[in-house]
């Protein structure tokens, strides 16, 4: 009766291949270089930045590092786009990354589940009729995610949007003479504001959202190692990405049955 499981808990799957990990590593490096060399302009009065950039010369070096890091990041973006467009795996990843209505439902579902208010009300006899008809709103279980959950999709698309905004505004700030040949000063001023505030948003989003989900979350604490070795175990796949797990299981069942036939 007990056939060996189609996916063992200790089986290793490749979640990020080397190319994807390299893209991520370069992104981490350039992102933090850009933050460190950019934030001082926003918080010009903070002592730690005055310590970090003690003189006019180091300020100029800061500018050079910022631009070099920006170029590296742009190169990374281009590599990512080419990789995504030209490889099968890249295209599959991209398809899985496309936001769907289900992601909104998942987000609401997770928050509702975490809050537990619906369950509490239901248990105490409130709105039974409503919840019996619409069991989704009861939030009885965590939503089940596929290859990429709404958290990861949000991160990815926020990053994509942010990067685009930063590249465009940064380009015109770098080439201020060109910018002012094309636009009036008040438009250039918007580039400057956008570049600064978008950076703050990106920084806070990464620090709060991403750091929670890959470090602090009890699911992965102290750190998900996917970004280092790219590996995910069958067990983690079942727990964190159940729909992807199901899909793989289904595929194997099919292969098995065709083999049997």
């Amino acid at each position, binding site marked *: 009766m007990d056939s060996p499981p189609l996916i063992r808990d200790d089986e290793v799957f490749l979640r990020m291949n080397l190319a994807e990990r390299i893209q991520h590593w370069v992104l981490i490096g350039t992102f933090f270089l850009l933050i460190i060399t950019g934030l001082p302009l926003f918080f010009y009065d903070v002592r730690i930045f005055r310590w970090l*950039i003690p003189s006019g010369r180091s300020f100029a070096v800061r500018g050079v590092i910022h631009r070099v890091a920006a170029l590296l990041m742009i190169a990374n973006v281009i590599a990512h786009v080419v990789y995504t467009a030209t490889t099968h795996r890249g295209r599959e990843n991209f398809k899985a990354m496309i936001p769907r209505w289900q992601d909104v439902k998942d987000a609401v579902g997770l928050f509702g589940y975490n809050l537990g208010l619906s369950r509490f009300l239901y248990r105490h006899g409130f709105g039974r009729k409503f919840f019996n008809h619409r069991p989704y709103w009861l939030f009885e279980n965590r939503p089940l995610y596929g290859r990429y959950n709404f958290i990861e999709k949000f991160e990815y698309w926020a990053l994509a949007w942010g990067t685009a905004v930063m590249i465009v505004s940064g380009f015109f700030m770098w080439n201020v003479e060109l910018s002012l040949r094309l636009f009036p000063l008040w438009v250039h001023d918007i580039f400057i504001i956008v570049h600064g505030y978008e950076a703050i948003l990106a920084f806070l989003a990464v620090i709060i959202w991403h750091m929670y989900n890959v470090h602090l979350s009890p699911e992965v604490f102290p750190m998900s190692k996917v970004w280092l070795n790219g590996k995910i175990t069958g067990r983690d796949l079942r727990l964190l990405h159940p729909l992807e797990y199901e899909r793989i299981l289904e595929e194997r069942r099919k292969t098995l049955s065709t083999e049997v036939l």
Partner: protein
Amino acid sequence: MTRGEAKRVCTLSWAVLVLLPFALAAPQTDADCLACHEDKELKSETGRAMSVDRAGFEMSIHGQAGISCVDCHLDLRKTKDYPHDSLLNPVSCGECHEAALREFATSIHQKASAEGQARIAVGCKDCHGSHEIRPKDDFDSLTFPLNLPATCEKCHLEAVPSKKGAGFIGGYNRSAHFKALEKSGLTMSANCSHCHGAHNITAVADPGSLVSRKNIIKTCGTCHVGIQKSYLEGVHGLDYVKGIKDVPVCTDCHSEHDILSPEDVNSSVYATKVAQVCSRCHDDLALSRQYGFLTSRLKTYSESFHGTAARFGEIRVANCASCHGYHDIRASSDPKSTIHKNNLPATCGQCHPGASRHFAEGRVHSSPEQVETAKYRASHVVKNVYVIIISVIIVVMVIFIAADFLRRILREEKRG
């Protein structure tokens, strides 16, 4: 006795009669004085050194002119008994130097003496020396331009404290003026007396003082003529002429004694420090209300790339003076102003080659309430929108994460 002989006798008698009293009263030659006073050990009863350096005196302007001891020490003219009375009247230089005495009578040095503030009483010899006085163009003269600062600083460095604090006067020794004197020997470079006057020195508060607000522009302008002219054409100069007290004069921006070249990193008008100097007035709310100019100049400048970079010590970025000019700063409404909208492309073009008219289509370091054209406020609107978006996103994220975190912890506990 021939007629001729009689005449000779007569003449001789007259000569004896006339000269005899002098001959009897005489110590009279310098040699007589120096017989005692050349002794280097000679001291009065109170222990004061009484020796006179013969060589020094002979080389002095008075010695060279053949003026003898008793020409100055008048009360010794009639003294016969030696050693003479030890207390002599002070020498009165004004007997000969009448003009100098008149000038000196109005000076703070004279006033101090008259009011009995003995500690700071100053006489001629305190600055000029006594027996060894040299002409003022003599290298060794105490009042030779290269030596004058040290002469004044004998008292003014420490003994006579300035109301502006210790080291205020010593600041001169770091100044560009002193450097020019000391390093290059440029005697036309300002020393104490160029700015403060010499015999007629008065306190700054005295309107007659060369360094009073009323006169300082003229005083600095004695050498810096072109700058004086340019200053008087600018807004500050125009108001200065009207007698407005709050308007900055030379010393308000350049400091007083320790004036340095703008290229010197310690100068108050060094590229990265200009903003602090200007904002002393231009960030002052009371002054801005009184004279109707914009405030928050330092804040808005600091927020700009120029200002931020300057704060970190970058000198290649624009500071106040790069765009507004300095001595002849004009209102932006003045067609001659460097920041008049027709001139902005040229002004910005100094650093941004090919700067177009677009440079003038916006507001540089403005607060939103100070911008009258709606579209020029766009960046302020974008900023506010961002602040709202960021706040909302962060709050939502934190709530979302907190809920997730607590739920997982609670579930873990239940299981455990």
